[in-house]
Each structure stands twice: as C-alpha cells, then as structure tokens.
C-alpha cells in the first residue's frame, strides 16, 4: 500500500486549470521526484498536499486516511514535513531554536507546565536541545548553532530548513526545489543527505528543476505539464520518453 496517494486532483485559479485530474502514488520508503517546466502545476500540487490550499475536487490519502480537507498543522502532525521554495526559516530565532521548534509536536506539556517549569519539562527541553544539536551536527551547522538564523547564508538556510523538517521525524518529506539557488558542491551535499534519508525510512517527494540531481537520487519520477501528468516511471525511462522531451523543448529548456 502506498504511503501517499492522490486521486483525480483538480485545482483552478480564476478559470485557469493549474492541475487537471492528476493521480499519482508515492510508495513508502522510496524517493519520488516531480519535474516539469515552469508553470506546470508542481508547486500547486505541493500546496495541496501540505494543506496550504484546498483542491476543487479529488482526494488525497495519506496512510489510508483522507486528508483532503485537513488543516496543514494537522497534516504535519500525521507525519508530513516540508520545506519551502523560497526559504522560510524563522529569522527571529537562533539556528538551534529553529530545529527545536521543529520538534513542536513531539514535546508535550500545557502552557502552565511550561510556565512553572516543572521538572519533567526541564528534562524534555534538555533532551530536545541535545537532539537538535545532533541534527545540526549531521548537517554541518553545529558551529553556528547560536547565531540568528537570518544571518546564515542562503544555502545554509536551506539546509537548516531541511533540519527543521527532519526534527519533526516525518514519514513523508516534501522538498520544494531544494537545490534552487545552491552551489554545485552544496547540491552534492544535499543529494547525499536525501539519499541518507532513505536508509532512515523517510519517504521523500521532491519537486525540482535541477534534473541531474533528481535523476540521481529519485527511484521514480513523475512529469507534469500544463497541469496534466504526462509521464511516470523510472528515471531512465522518463528521460527517454518522447512526450517529456517534447514538453521540455516546446516550453524552452527548463532542465539543465
């Protein structure tokens, strides 16, 4: 049974179909890539999955549960983490706090237990700090754990955003153009991290322009064009698919 399955999803903006009856499945434990030229509806699809927007029709199932009309914080509570196309780290907090805030759902306690700083809060906060530092260490950000997140360079902010999503311990991780704006070496580092996640049992769903990277890390690739799913399959098959080639060539080259 697939972890995430999307059935006949349609979304319109002012009469323009951004998504037209798209159905696809993401298998548990796999890495799935989603590519397509600009304006193909990739970001819309992501917004619908993470709950920023609601579809006009169709269904989204996650772990066999219908999440189509859930609020986005409920979805993340179920185990869907995400990053954003334009980085959205919280610049008013330190790096380590960004990651610790990612653990929000896993830390329990009411407002009063925090206000009174009960003993078990003390231990849970300490553990959270320790775990956040471990995550930062694995991303190579530990050296800057106490600096303000907005002071980090762009690439590091992207990594931090990934770290924050990881801190949720998600089952499904949605990455929205993780490689955009990164240097080549940063992209390499990023693909390593993504490949590692498979071993940790995290399912990853990537939207990406950077074809090379997606082809490398993804087990399976889906191609969107003008709001329709035009191809799906193994990277090498997709690469050879004539419909896909045509879509990219007629729209000008978006892949590199």
């Amino acid at each position: 049974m697939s972890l995430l399955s999307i059935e006949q999803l349609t979304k319109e903006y002012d009469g323009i179909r951004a998504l037209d009856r798209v159905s696809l499945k993401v298998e548990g434990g796999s890495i799935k890539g989603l590519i397509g030229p600009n304006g193909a509806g990739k970001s819309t699809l992501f917004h619908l999955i993470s709950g920023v927007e609601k579809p006009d029709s169709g269904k989204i199932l996650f772990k066999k549960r219908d999440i189509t009309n859930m609020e986005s914080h409920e979805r993340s509570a179920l185990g869907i983490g995400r990053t954003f196309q334009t980085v959205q780290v919280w610049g008013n907090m330190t790096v380590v706090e960004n990651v610790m805030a990612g653990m929000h759902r896993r830390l329990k306690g009411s407002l009063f237990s925090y206000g009174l700083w009960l003993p078990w809060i003390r231990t849970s906060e300490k553990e959270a700090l320790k775990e956040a530092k471990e995550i930062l260490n694995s991303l190579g950000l530990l050296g800057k754990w106490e600096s303000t997140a907005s002071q980090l360079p762009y690439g590091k902010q992207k990594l931090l955003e990934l770290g924050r999503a990881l801190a949720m311990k998600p089952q499904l991780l949605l990455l929205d153009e993780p490689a955009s704006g990164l240097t080549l070496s940063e992209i390499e580092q990023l693909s390593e991290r993504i490949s590692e996640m498979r071993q940790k049992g995290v399912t990853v769903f990537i939207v990406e322009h950077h074809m090379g990277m997606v082809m490398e890390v993804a087990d399976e690739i889906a191609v969107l064009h003008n709001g329709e799913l035009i191809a799906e399959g193994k990277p090498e098959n997709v690469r050879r698919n004539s419909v896909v080639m045509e879509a990219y060539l007629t729209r000008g080259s978006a892949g590199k």
Partner: protein
Amino acid sequence: MSSQPAKGAQKEFRKRDLFYLVPLWVLSLIAPDPYLYHKKEFKRKDLYYLGAIGLAPLTWSDPHFHHVMVLAGIYAILALGLSLFMGYAGQISLGHAAFFGIGAYTTAILTTRHGFSPFVALWASVLSASAVAYLIGRPILKLKGYFLALATLGFGEIFLVMVRESTDLTGGVIGIFGIPWFSVAGFSFDTYLKQYYLIWGVVAGLFIFSKNLVRSKLGRALLAVAASEDAASSVGINVPRIKLEIFVLGAAFAGLAGSLFACIMSTANPETFGLGVTVPIVMMVILGGMGTIYGPVAGAILLTWLMDILSRYQEYSLPIYSIILILLLIFFPDGIGTRLNVRILYLIGYWAKKRKRDEGKL
C-alpha cells in the same frame, strides 16, 4: 564601565551625549540581546535585579516613590502580558485596556456589592478576563495587521460604552467607590510600602512564569508564528490555537492587574480603561524592545515615571507627552535597550580611541 570619562578634549562631545547616556546606561543592561539561546536561561544578574527591586523602597522611603512604583508594577504586569502577544507572537492588540477594566470591575462589583474578599475577587477577575478573551479571541485572531488592530480597538470601545451605560452594574461614568484594600488571610496591604511589595512580588512571579514560557517550546512556537505562519503550521504548530492561548494568557495578566489596581485605587471608573491606558502599555512593549521579557518591565518603570513627572505640568502634560512618545518612536523604533546597546558600544570605542590619541599627544 565608567560613564564618567576624564575631563578634557571631549567636552563638546560629552555635552551632547551624556544627558541620555547616564540614565539610560542602566537600561541597556536591563535589555540584553534577546536572541542568543543561552541568554534565555536564568542568570545571576536576574537575582541582582530582584534584589534592587526589593531594596529600592527601603532606600527611598518617600511614599510618592512607593506609589509611583506600585503603578509602574501594575503597568508592568499589563505590559508583560501584552509583550507575549505582541512582542513574541507578533500580533497587535489595542484592546488590552478592556481586559484591565474587566478585571477591575469584577473585583469592584464582587467586593462592594457581594461582600467577597479581595483575594477571591482576584481569582474571579482573572477568570472573567480570560473568559471574555477566549470568546472575543476566537473570531478576532484570524485577522492580521491593521484589521486586527482595528478590531481589538473596537472591542475596547464597546467595553467602554457598556461600562458607561449599564449604570446599575458599574455605576456609569462615576464608577464604583470604596473597594477594600487587598488582603490575604487577615493581612491587609494598607500602606504604599506593603502594596509595593505585593505588586512587585506578583510582577516577579509573572516575570518568571513568562520567562519560562518564552524559553520553552511555547516561546519558540510564538516566535515561529510571528515570523512565518506557513512555516509554523508546516511543523505542526496549531497557529490559531497558540495565538488564542497567548491572547487569553495576556488577558489573564491584565485581569489580575485590573483587580490589584481596583484594590489599590479603591475606585473603578471608565476613564481609566480607555485608549489612555492602551497607548502607554503598547508603548512600554515597543520601548522595552519587542520580544524581550525585561523590556516591558523596564518600559513600564520608565513611562510611569515620565507620566508622573509630566502630570505636574497639568494641561501641558498631554501635548508634551505625545511629542515625547512620537520622538521615542522615531528614534527608538526597536526599543531603547537594543539601540542603546549599540550606541554605548560605539561610545566606549570612541572614548578608548580618543583617550589613546590624547595620551599619544601628551
């Protein structure tokens, strides 16, 4: 650090800068850089401040000083609650004075009409203010920016009209008189000095509570909501709920402050709970520096003294007061502490260089 440099070549420099430097240098210590994680832990410094607050009334035994500081403490409670909502969660509320008023009137009515003790009335005030905040917060808090400001302002105005018009319950424009002193188990807080310790004890307690909140998961969630609501809900933070929680908490603080205020002033009338309170407490939060816990307390002390000094000029006090507020907003939009820290570092560097240069000349 010495703020009195050697006399000599810097004379024209000092004339310009010393007058805000000396009194405000203390404040710069009070408002530390809020961002560093380890700064959010409790420090020995906090104990010193507590000691200073505890010893201050013994050093200055002037009853007027005690009274102004009692008022400052009440404002500090209000500003603390508001700071959680505005400084941390990044929302805007211009209706906080209404919760203050609800607390005061609950206490006034319960003690004078129904003969409850002030201690019971205190808890009733906290509960009533939070309950109203819960009801009003649910619809209002989905608004943002100007609309949120306007809606909360509107709520405050509705409250004022209700108070003025429901004469049977609240005494209308005249208000309610003869509220008893605050007392616990027979011990009555009937002098300014006793009130001072009562109020500042409460401030210290709430301060620790707030500080615990902001260094925990909740504080992080609040900051996250302020910076990006989309990102906050992407990690599973229930944004509407946490806004509501903190709004209600702020209202509870205000209700508590209102109850204490009613007991100390022994009256409650609508004049005290309008924009005349909202503007100063919002200013306290801004001046102290958004997103700090020391800030609102420092801002409360500063502004209360300012208002007290200005009240001597009678009809000129309001124009002067508003000009000072506007000037403060223009020159210290991020709060006095943060900007001053930078300024002082700059000055230290300047003096050090200057002294070196002078010594070189000699």
